[in-house]
């Protein structure tokens, strides 16, 4: 067994692998730069989480809001902005097919989107960041079972 957070992250990686534009270029918690051969690609990180204790009786229930960062990376001479929006359609629709993330979560919401561009390289590049909040709960003495 593993932390529910890992199960949610695994679910998102599986959900986003094989999309039309990014295909198998999906990287979990990647730390190395992305070369052109890995584009267009997606990276997935679970960077932060907030928790609230909802009961007083032990073991208490923890209501958690996990922030998942999904980033899209593309390169193109002129259509990089359209590539980003095509990927956005695919990511948003894929995530919405099961907002319980395989039964580990109560809800999944995309709460923000940001795009950035650069012409510093041989071909223009762009990245987009989807901030996704996943709400789930566990008992304080068992982080491996969602409840």
């Amino acid at each position, binding site marked *: 067994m593993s932390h529910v957070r890992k199960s949610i992250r695994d679910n998102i990686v599986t959900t986003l692998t094989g999309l039309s534009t990014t295909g198998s270029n999906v990287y979990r918690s990647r730390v190395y730069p992305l070369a052109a051969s890995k584009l267009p690609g997606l*990276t997935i990180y679970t960077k932060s989480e907030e928790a609230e204790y909802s009961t007083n009786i032990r073991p208490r229930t923890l209501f958690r809001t996990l922030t998942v960062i999904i980033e899209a990376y593309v*390169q193109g001479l002129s259509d990089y902005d359209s590539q980003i929006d095509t990927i956005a359609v695919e990511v948003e629709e894929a995530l919405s097919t099961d907002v319980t993330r395989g039964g580990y979560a109560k809800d999944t919401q995309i709460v923000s989107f940001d795009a*950035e561009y650069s012409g510093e390289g041989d071909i223009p590049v762009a990245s987009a960041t989807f901030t996704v909040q996943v709400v789930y709960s566990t008992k304080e003495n068992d982080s491996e079972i969602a409840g």
Partner: protein
Amino acid sequence: MAVETAADRALLLNDFGVDAIYDPASSSHKTVKGVFDNEYEAVNTGATLDFAITRPRFYCRSADVSGVAEGDDLEIEGVAYKIRVIMPDGTGMTEMMLEKQ
């Protein structure tokens, strides 16, 4: 103020430069000599990861590309580029940021 002459600059480029075919939209093409840099660099757009991509630059005498405009074509070692940014250094040399086609 430049301390070297146009001939000095030409000598430098003869030693370290490569031939490029400069093809401006406004006139016919010609061969110019310049220093070509195309190293891999980490480019960050603000996301978590850097892009590992090449960063092509061409450095030549300003007089050889007088009237150069963004969007003009440059071919170096068989690879076609568009000139995207023109950066004259004020001493008779010009650096150009290139986009691979």
